């Protein structure tokens, strides 16, 4: 606070800075007091109520089954998002294509996968075996050359990936489409006038600018995906974090502390994702702002430097 005023005042040498009594905000003090009381109550309960089971949590939080569950959850999140992102971009481009077959196919995909619950979709993928017990390659109506059992071709993990990834693609395609539409038409014209084709314009001119609009909701989707992975019990895929935590909880007759423990893991992971998102957004802000916003580390350094020079 004092650093800002000093910087401004320092510009005009000889002019004394304004010394005025700051406005008082009694309402803020009252609000802060009320919040402080609630926070104190919550902290008190967290520390003194033995049912939270903190010692149990600290014993189990880094145990092998839980760590393995964290690994599976992270892997599912990453792979499902990659499928969603790649397929989402393809669907968005199809949707904006002048070819009516491509654009309606993309529309139908989004309609179907966005319009049904992901939990149900996971169940359906796991039970695709009910539709086709075997998949075979061969001459139609003739001899079969290769035959697969669907059970071995689509194990639980693949079913989970298909369910989560395809559902995500439907949402991502709408996000990407919004991003593409947000880019000024003049950009397209300028690229076209230079002799760029439709795909060149999209790749070099439109998509990089669309990223500014695409990244924040994609971060949102990734965080959402991390939590949605707990639904793969519909398949059932049992190696992910929440199922593992519940299994341990049921075995110990202590389900509650284990659910809290899983929440701590989810919170930790989403926090890491938020940091990543901040830096990706900063990267794509190039050219859209006169000056890039400082990173948290730069901010801290600047504060320290100004504070240090004072004394």
């Amino acid at each position, binding site marked *: 606070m004092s650093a800002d005023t000093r910087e401004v005042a320092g510009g005009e040498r000889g002019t004394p800075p304004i010394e005025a009594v700051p406005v008082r905000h009694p309402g803020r003090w009252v609000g802060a007091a009320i919040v402080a009381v609630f926070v104190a109550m919550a902290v008190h309960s967290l520390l003194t109520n033995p049912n939270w089971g903190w010692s149990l949590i600290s014993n189990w939080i880094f145990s092998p089954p839980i760590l393995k569950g964290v690994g599976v959850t992270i892997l599912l999140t990453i792979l499902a998002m990659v499928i969603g992102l790649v397929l989402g971009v393809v669907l968005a481009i199809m949707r904006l294509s002048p070819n009516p077959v491509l654009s309606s196919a993309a529309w139908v995909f989004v309609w179907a996968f966005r319009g049904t619950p992901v939990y149900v979709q996971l169940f359906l993928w796991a039970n695709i075996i009910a539709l086709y017990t075997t998949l075979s390659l061969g001459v139609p109506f003739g001899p079969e050359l290769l035959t697969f059992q669907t059970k071995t071709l689509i194990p639980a993990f693949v079913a989970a990936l298909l369910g989560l990834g395809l559902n995500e693609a439907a949402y991502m395609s709408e996000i990407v489409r919004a991003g593409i539409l947000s880019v000024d038409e003049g950009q397209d014209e300028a690229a076209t*006038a*230079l002799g760029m084709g439709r795909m060149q314009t999209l790749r070099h001119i439109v998509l990089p600018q669309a990223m500014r609009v695409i990244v924040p909701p994609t971060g949102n989707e990734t965080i959402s995906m991390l939590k949605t992975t707990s639904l793969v019990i519909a398949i059932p895929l049992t190696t992910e974090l929440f199922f593992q935590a519940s299994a341990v909880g049921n075995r110990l007759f202590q389900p509650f502390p284990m659910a809290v423990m899983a929440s701590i893991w989810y919170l930790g992971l989403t926090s890491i994702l938020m940091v990543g998102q901040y830096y990706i957004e900063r990267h794509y802000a190039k050219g859209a702002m006169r000056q890039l916003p400082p990173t948290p580390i730069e901010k801290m350094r600047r504060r320290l430097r100004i504070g240090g020079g004072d004394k």
Partner: protein
Amino acid sequence: MTEKPIKVLAENVHKAFGRNEVLRGIDMEIRVGEVACIVGPSGGGKSTFLRCINHLEKIDAGRLSVDGELIGYKQRGGKLYEMHDKEVAEQRRSIGMVFQRFNLFPHMTAAENVMSGPVVVRKDNKKQARERALDLLGQVGLGDRGDSYPMQLSGGQQQRVAIARALAMDPDLMLFDEPTSALDPELVGEVLDVMRRLAATGMTMVVVTHEMGFAREVGDVLAFIDQGVVAEIGEPREILAQPKSKRFQDFLGKVL
């Protein structure tokens, strides 16, 4: 003058947006090395005509050719065939365009903007393209701003980068769509200077403009487009001094 070959030839060009007929039979010929200025009231069709020359707009009727080659169409055995997107893109390479609102790519530096055409379209070597870009930026007086983003440049500087970007494709025809209309008055001069120097190198230019001074001084031809037709055309000084039609007289009365 007349022995110079024809660069742009428009014959009875029509264009409508839905029911709104914007061009109703434009006839014009522009010869190699000429600077043709187009003036007229807004909504009269001058920008639309310019955009037809590089096929940003498709014409509905008539013929429009550059260097004797139809734009956007092929003629074989008395029949017209629409060109494939790739072939149109090929035609556009040798036609540079500068827009009213600059349309620089905001996520690229000035140098990257100028390089973008050669690198993406012509697959030029990046290092050489960059050297060329810096050289072109130097020619428009921005040799030291290669690493600035468009947002960090003034309007006049942005428009000069846009001119350099168009020149990077080595065009032999330059289209200017009201290049100074979005600029603060004190920045108009620097852009006109660059255009004046470009005209002196013998570049064929078609300029939609409101700058009568520029038209009089640099233009070889001045066309007055109103209500979708060329209402008056001729040597700029002559027709500005003695406008024949009432509409042109009224228009000049408003802008001069």
